[in-house]
C-alpha cells in the first residue's frame, strides 16, 4: 500500500484530502503542524512513500520543514510535494524547488483527484 504523510494545519483542507486519499486507497498519516510532522517522521513511527506539505503554517513553515527533512539522512530521499494556496511565481515556489521539493502545486488550481493521481505517479516513479 502506498503511504502518504500529510502536513497541513487547516482542518477543512485536511478533511478533504483525507477523503480523496482514502477513496484512492492510500495509507496515510496526518500532522497538523511542522514540528509534530518532523517528530513523527524522525521517530520512524511512519515511513511514507511521499510527503505532502503545506507552506503557510504557524510556528514552523513548510520551507523550514523541507530544510529539516533534507538534512536528515533517513528522510532526505522521500519525495516532497508542496501543496499551497500561495501563488505560483512567488519566491516561495522557487525556494521550495531549490530546497529539494519535487513539485509545487496550488491547491485551488488542482482538483483533489488530480492531486491523488499526481501523488500516485510520483510514488511510482520513485519506486522504480
Amino acid at each position, binding site marked *: 500500500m502506498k503511504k502518504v504523510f500529510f502536513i497541513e494545519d487547516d482542518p477543512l*483542507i485536511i478533511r*478533504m484530502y483525507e477523503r480523496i486519499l482514502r477513496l484512492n486507497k492510500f495509507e496515510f498519516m496526518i500532522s497538523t503542524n511542522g514540528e509534530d510532522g518532523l517528530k513523527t517522521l524522525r521517530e520512524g513511527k511512519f515511513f511514507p512513500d511521499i510527503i505532502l506539505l503545506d507552506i503557510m503554517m504557524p510556528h514552523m513553515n513548510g520551507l523550514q520543514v523541507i530544510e529539516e527533512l533534507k538534512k536528515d539522512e533517513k528522510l532526505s530521499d522521500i519525495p516532497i510535494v508542496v501543496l499551497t*494556496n500561495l501563488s505560483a511565481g512567488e519566491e516561495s515556489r522557487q525556494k521550495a524547488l531549490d530546497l529539494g521539493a519535487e513539485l509545487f502545486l496550488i491547491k485551488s488550481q488542482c482538483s483533489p483527484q488530480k492531486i491523488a493521481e499526481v501523488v500516485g505517479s510520483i510514488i511510482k516513479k520513485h519506486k522504480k
Partner: protein
Amino acid sequence: MAEESKKKKVAFRSFAVSLAIAFSILVSVSLFIVGGVQAYLIFFSERQNVIDHQSHITEAAASQVKDFVKERITTLETATAFGNIIALDGSEQERILNRLLGIDSSFRQIIMTDKEGNVVLRASRLSKSLSAKVIVYNKNELLRETEKGSVYISPVYIDITTNEPLMVVGIPISDVFGDLEGTLIGEVNLKFTWNLVSSIKIGEGGFVFVVDRNGSLIASKDISRVLRGEKISGVQEIEKFVNNFELSADSAEVSRGIDGTYVMSTQIPLGNPDWAVIAELPLFEAYENVFYGLGFSALVILLAIAFSITVSVFLSKKITEPISRLREVTKKIREGNFDAKATIDENNEVGELAQDFNSMAERLRAYTQDLEKKVIERTGKLNIKIRELIESNRKLSETQKELKEEKEGVERKILERTKELREEQARLLASINSLSIGFILADLNNEIVLKNAAVSRILDISEEDVSLDKIAGFFEKTPDFMKMLGDCMKEKKVCEFKEVESKNKIFRIVFAPIAINETGEIIGYVLLLEDVTEPRTFERTRDEFFLIASHELRTPLTAIRGNAEIMEQFFMDKINEAEVVDMVEDIRKASVRLIAIVNDFLDVSRIEQHKIKLEISSVPINKEIKEAVKGLFTSAEMKGVKLIFSENESLGNVMGDEDRIEQVLVNIIGNAINYTHEGFVKVVLEKEGDFAKVSVIDTGVGIPHENQKYLFKKFQQAGTNILARDVTKGTGLGLYISRLLVEDMGGEIWLEESGEGKGSTFSFTLPLEKK
C-alpha cells in the same frame, strides 16, 4: 609683572667700592690661610711638648711608687737573708719581727707562717684582738707564689676602721736547700705613698694619682677620696687600665678627668704591683702656650686686614678717579653742555679714552649745530606747506559735504529698495517655510543659500547642522547621492528619486538645477526632500494585507471546490435527485469562478507592483499554443464552437515566461470562446519582424466601438454603466493582466479589429529568440 621684575635695574654700586671689596677679600683670605696653617703647626708642636713633659713626670712618679713597694720587700728580705728563721726559737723570731716593725713604719703587721700557711707568729702595732681580723690575703695565692720563690703582693684593701689602703706583701722563707719552710708576710700601709704622690706637681694645676686594677684609688692629692675607698668610673684612662688595654706613656689623651673637667692625661702601668700611675693636666693649662700663640697670630692677622682694607680703598680710588671724572663729563654732555672737557693727564688707557672722548664730544657738537640749522630751515618750509594744506583741507571738506549729501540720497534709495527686497524675501521665505516639503537652495559650491525649517524636521537634525555634506551622509545607503546630483546638474534636468531609504524612513528627493534665463548658465540648484514613509508604508501594508487576504480566501474556496469535485467524481451514484446533482455542479462552478476572480485580483496587484518575477526562457511558441488550444478544446466543443489553430512550426522560439504565455493564451482564446455562440475561434501564428505574432479571430458578438477604448484597462467591462456588467464573464481583469504580462515580456497586445456582430480579432506579439 614677572617681566618687569626681571628688568629691574641692578642697584648702582661704584666701581671703586667693588674694587676695594675685591682687594680686601683677596688679602684677608690669604692672611687667613697663612694664619690657619701657622696656628695648626703651633698647636701640634706645643702639644707634643706638653705630652713629653707630662710623660716624663708620670714616669718619675711611677718609679717612685714602684720603689716604695720594692723597699718594703727588700726590708722583709733582710730578715730572711740569714736563713731559715722558722728554725729559730720563738723569742728570736719575735725579736726579728718586732725589729722589722721598728725599721719600717709603713709595716702595720708582720706575720710568719709555716709552709702550710698557718700563722706561726705575729708582730703588730695594733692590739692583738683587732689585728687578727684585719689582715687580708689569699693563702693559696701566697703559697703558690712563695713556693716558686717569688714575692706575693695582695690586692689593695681598705681598713674598715681607719679607711686607709692596705696591702700584703709575702716572701718565702727557705732552708739551705732552697726548700720552702714558711712565709714572711708584711701588711703595708699605703698611706705612706700619699705624701709621695701629692708632692708631685705638673705645671700649675696638674697632679698624679695611683689606682689598682679594680679602679680603686690608692693615692691621690685628695686624701678624702682615698679614705672613702672610692672606685673611680667614667674616667677614660682608668677604664682603659681596668679593662687591660695596651698602654704606653707616650700617648696622651684629652678626656674627662677624675675631677670631671677636661684634662690631658697620661698613664703608666707599674706591672708589679699591678697598679697604674695616672697624670692629669687641666686642658687649658696644657694648651696655654698654644692659646697665647693663636691669640698673637689672630691679632697680627686683624691688623694686617685693617691695613690692607685701607690700602685697597686708597688704590681703588686712585684707579677709578679718572673714570669718575669721565662720567661727570659724560653727564654734562648728555645734558647738552658740549663745552665740557675731560681733563685727564695720564698717559695710559684712561688718558687715551679721555682724549678720544673729547674729540667725540667735539664732533657731536658740530653735528648738533648743523642739525639745528637744518631744523630751522625745514621748519620754515614746513610752515608754508602747512598753510597750503589748511587751504586744501578746507576745499576738501566742502567737497565732502557735497558728497555726503549725494550719498545720503543714494542711501535713502538703497534703503527703500532693500526694504522692498526684504519684504519680497520675507514673502518668499514665508511661503518656503510654510512648505511641508524640505526646501534647500544651494549654490554651485554646495553652500546652502536658503532652506526651510522642514529640512531639519524631516532629517531630524538640528537647524545649524543642515549642510549638503550632512544630507549626503544621511543617505549613506545611497553612496552616489552627490554624484547623482552632479549628473543631473550636467544634464540640466530635474531628477526625482521616488524612494530613498535611510534610517528606517523613506524619502522622495527632487533635484532641480537653477539656470539663468538669458544664458542657460547653471548657478545653483534646488533640493526638495519629502518624507514619504507613511504613504509608502501604507502601500506595503496594503500589499501584505492583499496577499494574506487572497490566501485566506482561497483556502475555503479550495475546500468548496475540492469537495464538490469529489462528490461529482465519487458520490453521484448515491444522489438520486437530479436537482441535487445540478446543485453540486453549480457549487463547483461558482467556486472555480471565485477562485479565478481572487487569482486575478492577486495577479493584478502583484504585476502592477512588479512583484512577479518573470522567468524568461526560450519557449517553443507553436507547441505552447497547441497545448493551450488542447486544454480549451472541450469547453469550445461544448458550446458548439470550432477551435482551430493553424500551426507554424518553422517560427521557432520566443523569449518569455512559459507559464505567463500560457496564461495570456488561455485568457484571450478563452474570452473568444466565451463571447462566441456559433462559428469558430481561430488562432494564427506568424512572424512579424523580430516578433512572433499571435492572432485570435472569432465570429462572436464583437465589441461596440464606444467600448473599445476600455479594453485592456482595469475592469474594462465596467464601460459606462456598472449595472451593464456581464457578470458571467469574470472580473474583467483578464485583458488588463494579459497586457501587463505581454508588455513585461517585451511584446504588445491590441485589438486588431472588431465591430458589433462582426466578431473580433485580438493580437499580441512576443520577441523571437535571437539566433
